[in-house]
């Protein structure tokens, strides 16, 4: 089974801090994604990557950046955390070049910015 591991389940950070969310997958998947999930808004794509060092903006990239130096690892960076970035962050991976491959999600990081 594919395993997507997010390094923290819960994080509490202060406004203005730089925050790193880490995600590792163990199935050699080409594609990795970062979503945030908010009540009533569903899952919204922040960034995705289809190869090492490659990245594409999703629907809500403002205030975020990403890094993919190795195939198995995809990091989300909040450059200067703000309270409106309090959310559940979900990492996912998928295989193949097709855009219909099922997404495999981690269990999420619940981030609170105070």
């Amino acid at each position: 089974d594919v395993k997507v591991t997010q390094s923290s389940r819960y994080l509490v950070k202060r406004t203005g801090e730089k925050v790193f969310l880490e995600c590792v997958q163990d199935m050699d998947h080409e594609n990795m994604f970062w979503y945030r999930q908010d009540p009533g808004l569903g899952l919204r794509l922040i960034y995705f990557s289809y190869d090492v060092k490659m990245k594409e903006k999703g629907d809500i990239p403002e205030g975020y950046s990403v890094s993919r130096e190795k195939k198995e690892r995809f990091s989300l960076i909040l450059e200067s955390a703000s309270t409106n970035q309090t959310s559940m962050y979900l990492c996912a991976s998928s295989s193949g070049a097709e855009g219909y491959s099922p997404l495999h999600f981690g269990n999420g990081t619940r981030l609170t910015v105070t």
Partner: protein
Amino acid sequence: SQKIEQNSEALNIQEGKTATLTCNYTNYSPAYLQWYRQDPGRGPVFLLLIRENEKEKRKERLKVTFDTTLKQSLFHITASQPADSATYLCAHSWGGGTYKYIFGTGTRLKVLA
């Protein structure tokens, strides 16, 4: 703009009955529909995928239909059990190197014993 709607935020049914969840889309024609299950505090887990040229897909007690005329997908759980209680998400994708998936906001299903 492209939009996907799961018009029931919550659904309660009695154990043993069939649960039917609805997913509607507007302003576009997705090539694929996917359904996921999400338990509290967990990430979504993939259940089923159906292509636009497939009318129906089954997996054990699960059945998904895709009606491109109505722009709708129905997700059925037959002989429902309390363990089926969860939030169910539908998602659309296009394939062909496009990695955009649009998710609905989910339907929270509760199966009553």
